[in-house]
C-alpha cells in the first residue's frame, strides 16, 4: 500500500502541464503505480477540461471575434487529412543492472532510451542518469542491500520515487510507489537493510554531504549526481 503521495497541488500542476519535465516524469511514474493518484488526476483533468473547453459555448455556427474563418477551417482540415501519423512511441519495459532486472512503469518505459549507463558510486550505490535536457538532475539510483547514502543536504528540492524495494531514512520507511519530496536543507540519510532498492530521483541542485567519509564525495558530487 502506497502511503506517501504527491500533494494535490503537485497533481494539479502535473495535470495542467505546468511541472518541469523531470518532475513530470517522477510524478507520472508514481501515478502509473498508484491507483489513488491516478483517479485524482482523472478528476482534475475532467475539471480542467470543463474549465478550458466544455464551458465554452463558442462554435463555428456562432463565431466570436478572432475565430477561424470557414476558409481557415477547410485549409486546416485538408492539412490534417494529408498528414502522416507520428510513429508509435518507443518503449522498453526492462532495465538491467549487473544481473538484476526491473520492469519499468509505463511513463518511465517511454523514457528508457534516455537512461544512460550505470555507474558504480562508492559503497553499494549505483546510478544511471536520465537525460531530460531539463534544469533538474534526474537519476535512477540503485542501492544494494545494506547500502547507505551518506547524510546530505541539498540546496534545491529533491523528489524521490521508490520503483522497487524499500529504503529507510531518519523519518520513515518507503516502499514501492512511495513518493518523497524533501525541501532544501533537510538532512537525511537513506539506507537499505536486507532488501535492495531502485529509486528514481530528481533534484535541482547538487547534494552536499555533511559527515564522515562521505565528505570525500563532495568534490565529485556534481560528477555523481549530474
Amino acid at each position: 500500500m502506497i502511503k506517501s503521495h504527491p500533494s494535490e497541488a503537485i497533481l494539479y500542476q502535473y495535470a495542467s502541464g505546468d511541472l518541469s519535465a523531470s518532475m513530470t516524469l517522477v510524478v507520472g511514474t508514481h501515478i502509473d503505480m498508484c491507483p489513488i493518484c491516478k483517479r485524482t488526476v482523472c478528476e482534475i483533468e475532467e475539471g480542467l477540461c470543463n474549465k478550458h473547453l466544455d464551458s465554452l459555448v463558442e462554435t463555428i455556427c456562432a463565431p466570436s471575434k478572432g475565430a477561424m474563418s470557414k476558409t481557415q477551417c477547410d485549409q486546416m482540415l485538408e492539412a490534417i487529412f494529408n498528414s502522416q501519423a507520428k510513429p508509435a512511441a518507443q518503449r522498453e519495459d526492462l532495465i538491467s543492472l549487473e544481473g538484476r532486472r526491473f520492469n519499468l512503469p509505463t511513463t518511465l518505459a517511454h523514457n528508457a532510451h534516455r537512461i544512460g549507463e550505470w555507474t558504480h558510486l562508492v559503497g553499494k550505490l549505483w546510478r544511471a542518469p536520465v537525460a531530460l535536457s531539463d534544469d533538474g538532475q534526474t537519476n535512477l539510483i540503485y542501492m544494494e542491500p545494506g547500502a547507505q547514502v551518506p547524510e546530505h543536504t541539498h540546496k534545491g528540492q529533491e523528489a524521490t520515487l521508490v520503483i522497487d524495494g524499500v529504503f529507510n531514512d531518519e523519518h520513515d520507511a518507503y516502499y514501492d510507489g512511495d513518493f518523497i519530496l524533501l525541501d532544501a536543507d533537510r538532512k537525511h540519510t537513506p539506507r537499505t537493510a536486507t532488501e535492495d532498492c531502485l529509486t528514481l530521483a530528481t533534484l535541482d541542485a547538487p547534494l552536499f554531504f555533511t559527515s564522515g567519509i562521505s565528505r570525500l564525495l563532495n568534490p565529485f558530487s556534481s560528477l555523481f549526481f549530474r
Partner: protein
Amino acid sequence: MQTVTSHTSQRGVMTTSQQDTAEKAAQLLAQIAETRSRQAFSELFSHFAPKLQAYGTRQFGNEQTAMDLVQETMTNVWHKAHLFKADKGSPSTWIFTIARNIRFDLLRKNKKRKDDISADELWPILAEQNDNLDDDYALDQDILLQEISHYYGQLPDAQRIVVEKIYVEGKSQQEVSDSLGIPLGTVKSRTRLALKKLKELIVEHD
C-alpha cells in the same frame, strides 16, 4: 471505490446537453477510428476547434501559436481516434489531455532546447499499449557485483594516507601536516593529486 455518480457530483452535475454532446463525440470518434470518415471528423472538428483555439489563445496570448495548437491537437485526434476509450473518460477530456501535451511541447519549443523531451514521452496517453499490468517491478533476486569502494585503495600510499586523515578522520590539512611531519604544501599537493587520480579512476570505470 467511487461511483460514477459521485464523480460527477463533485464537478457539478453534467447537463443533458453536455451528456448528449459527449455521446455524439464518442460516436464520431468511433466512426473515425473504424471507417476513417472525413465527414465525422469534420463534424468533430467544428465542435472542438473553436474551443481549442480559445484555450490556445488564453495560454499563449498569440493567435498563430493558438492555431498551431488546434492543428496539432486535431491531427492527433484524426490519427489516434482508435485510442480513445469511452470507459476511461469523456471525449472532451481525452482531447483536452492531447491539447495539454501539445501546449507543453509548444511552450518548450519556444525555449529552443536541443534533443528535447516531448510531452508524449511524459504523458504517454497516445501510446498503443499503455497498461503495465505487472505491479511488481523487480524480476529476480540476483545479487550485484561486489561493492567497489576500492577506488581510493588504488591510490599511492602517500596520497591515500593524506586522504584518509582528511576525509575519514576529519582532520584539517594543518593537523595532517603536523602529525605526519610533512610540510603543509606537500599535504595540499598530495590531496589535490589524490582527488585528481580518484576522478580519473571513477571516469575510467564509468
